[in-house]
C-alpha cells in the first residue's frame, strides 16, 4: 500500500484548551476528491484548520509522508497545501491582480505571469475587474478569485471550506464544474467541506461524516449517497 498524500491519525484539536475534535483519522490520496459532511458546529472547519496548523492539535498529520503537525502554517502552505477558508479569504483592500500575485508570493519560479493569464482565461470576469479591489467584487466573483488565488500556489492539496455558501444555485453548479476540472486537469487533490452534499458527492470519490467532533462514517461517494442517515440529514430525501 502506498502512503496517501495526506494522513491524519488520532488528531485532536483545541480552542483555548477545549477539545473540538476528539481524535479523527482521515486520509486523502493523490489526485482524489474527498468530501467532509457534518452539521453546523460538527468540526468541519476545525478539521481543515488543523491540517494548516491554525489551531492547536495533538496526534499525527503527515503530508506526502512528512510530519507536518507542529510545523508553522507558512511552511505547510509552502509544501503545497492551499486553503480557501470559509468566507472566501480574499484580501479586500488589494486589487484582483494583487490577490493573484499574493497567492504566488512564496513561489520563486518564472511561471507566475503565465498562471495569472490562464486564470483570467478561466474566469474572464476577473480579467475585467483586475484593477478593482477584491472587496468590491460580488460574492460569486470573490469565490472565483479565492479559488484562483489558492491555486496560484500550484498546490498538490486544496482545502475548500463551504465554497457554495451564499452563492446562487447556478453559480454553485459552475463552481463545482471548475473544481472538478481543476482536479481532473491538474491532478490537485481536494478536501471539500460542504453543506450542499448532492453536488459535492457528484465530484467526490470518497467522503467522511463528522458529528460533534467525531468521525461517524467513512465511505465511498456512492455508499454515502445510498446511506439512509446521510440521505435524511444532507440530501433532503
Amino acid at each position, binding site marked *: 500500500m502506498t502512503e496517501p498524500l495526506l494522513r491524519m491519525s488520532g488528531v485532536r484539536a483545541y480552542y483555548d484548551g477545549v477539545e473540538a475534535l476528539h481524535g479523527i483519522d482521515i486520509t486523502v490520496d493523490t489526485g482524489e476528491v474527498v468530501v467532509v459532511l457534518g452539521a453546523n458546529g460538527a468540526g468541519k472547519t476545525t478539521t481543515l484548520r488543523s491540517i494548516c496548523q491554525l489551531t492547536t492539535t495533538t496526534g499525527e498529520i503527515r503530508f506526502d509522508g512528512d510530519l507536518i503537525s507542529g510545523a508553522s502554517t507558512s511552511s505547510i502552505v509552502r509544501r503545497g497545501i492551499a486553503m480557501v477558508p470559509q468566507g472566501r*479569504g480574499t484580501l479586500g483592500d488589494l486589487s484582483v491582480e*494583487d490577490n493573484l500575485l499574493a497567492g504566488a*508570493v512564496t513561489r520563486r519560479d518564472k511561471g507566475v505571469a503565465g498562471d495569472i493569464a490562464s486564470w483570467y482565461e478561466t474566469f474572464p470576469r476577473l480579467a475585467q475587474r483586475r484593477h478593482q479591489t477584491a472587496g468590491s467584487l460580488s460574492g460569486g466573483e470573490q469565490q472565483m478569485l479565492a479559488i484562483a488565488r489558492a491555486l496560484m500556489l500550484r498546490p498538490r492539496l486544496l482545502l475548500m471550506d463551504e465554497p457554495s455558501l*451564499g452563492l446562487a444555485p447556478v453559480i454553485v453548479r459552475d463552481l463545482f464544474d471548475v473544481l472538478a476540472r481543476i482536479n481532473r486537469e491538474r491532478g490537485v487533490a481536494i478536501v471539500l467541506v460542504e453543506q450542499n452534499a448532492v453536488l459535492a458527492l457528484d465530484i467526490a470519490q470518497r467522503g467522511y461524516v463528522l458529528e460533534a467532533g467525531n468521525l461517524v462514517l467513512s465511505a465511498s461517494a456512492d455508499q454515502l449517497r445510498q446511506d439512509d442517515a446521510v440521505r435524511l440529514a444532507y440530501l433532503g430525501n
Partner: protein
Amino acid sequence: MGTVLSQAVSGGQADLDVVAARRRRARLRAVLVVIVLLAAFSVWAVIDGGAQLYLQRFFDGITNGLLYGLAALSLVIVFKATGIINFAQGPMAMLGCYLALTVLEMWPMPVLLAIVIAMVVSGLGGAVLERVLIRPFDPDNHMAIIIVTLALFLGFNALAALVWGFRPLSFPSPFPQGTADAIEIAGARLSYQAIGTALLVVGAVVVLELVLNRTRLGLSFRCVANDVANSRLLGIDIGRTVQFSWALAAAVGTLGACLIAPSTYVDPGFMNKILVYAFAAATLGGLDSIRGALAGGLLTGLSVSLVTGYLPGVGSELGLVVGFAMIIAVLQFKPAGLFGNRAMERV
C-alpha cells in the same frame, strides 16, 4: 436553506457597498471642511498681513509639514502591519541622527551619504529590535507590546544621553544654507535647503511606494496589513513581514530626523516635539494610510505655521499646543482620520 443563506450573504455585500460609499462621502466632506477652514484662514491672513508674509508662512508650513509627514509615515508603516503605535519611533530616529553625526565625524564624506549609511544601520537595528524585543510577545497582546515600546522610549533617551551627552549639537545640512541660497517668489524666501528637503521627502515617498507595490516583501506587507489570518494561509511569514515593517520605519524615521535636524539642533529629546506633530499628522491622515500621513503632515505643518504666525498671543513656542489641540480634535470628531479606515481604538 441555500437561498436563504445566499440572500443573507448578498445582502451583506450590498450593505458593504453602501457603507463604503457612505465612508467615501464622509471622507470627502471632512477633507472639504478642512480645506475650506484653511482657505478662509488664508484669506483673512492675506488681508491682515499682506501676501508676502502669508507666502513666507505658507512655504515654512509646507516644508515643515512634509517633514512631519515623513515622521508620521514611520508610525504608519508599523501601525499598518501590526495595529500598534511604536512610541519609541521618535527616540529611534534621534539615535539614527546621532549615528549620522558620528559617521560624519569619523569619516569625512558628503552629508547625504552619511544619512544613507545611518538609514541602513537604523533599518538593521529596527529589524534586530523587532526580532529580540517584539516578536517574543503574542502579536494580539497589544498592551504588552506598547509597554515595550514605551520602555524603549525611555531607554533610548537615556542611552543617547549617556553616549552623546545633553549638549545640543548642530547638524550640517546636505544643501547650501547661506542667506543667498534661496529663490524669491513675490518677496517671500524659499531656501534651497527647503526645496532640497522637499524633493528628498517626495523622492523617499516614491521609493517607499515602489518598494511596497513592486517587491515581494512589499506585497507581503500589504497582505499582512489587510488581513493577518489570510496572509498566513498564503504562506507568508508574518514575523518576517512585521520585521520588514520595523526596518522600513526605522530607516524612514532616521531620514526624517536627519532632514529636520539642520533647522533645529540634535539632543536626546529633540525628536519628541516633532513626534507630537507626527502624531497629529498621523491621526489627521488616518493611521493606516500612507498618503494620508503625508497629507496630514502638510495640514499640520500649515496649520501650525499659520496659527502661530497670525493668531495674536499664540507665539511659536505654543506650536506644540496647536499640535495637541489638533490630535484631540481629530480623535473627538473623526477618530479614523481623514483618509484612514481604522480608528485608533486600542491605545
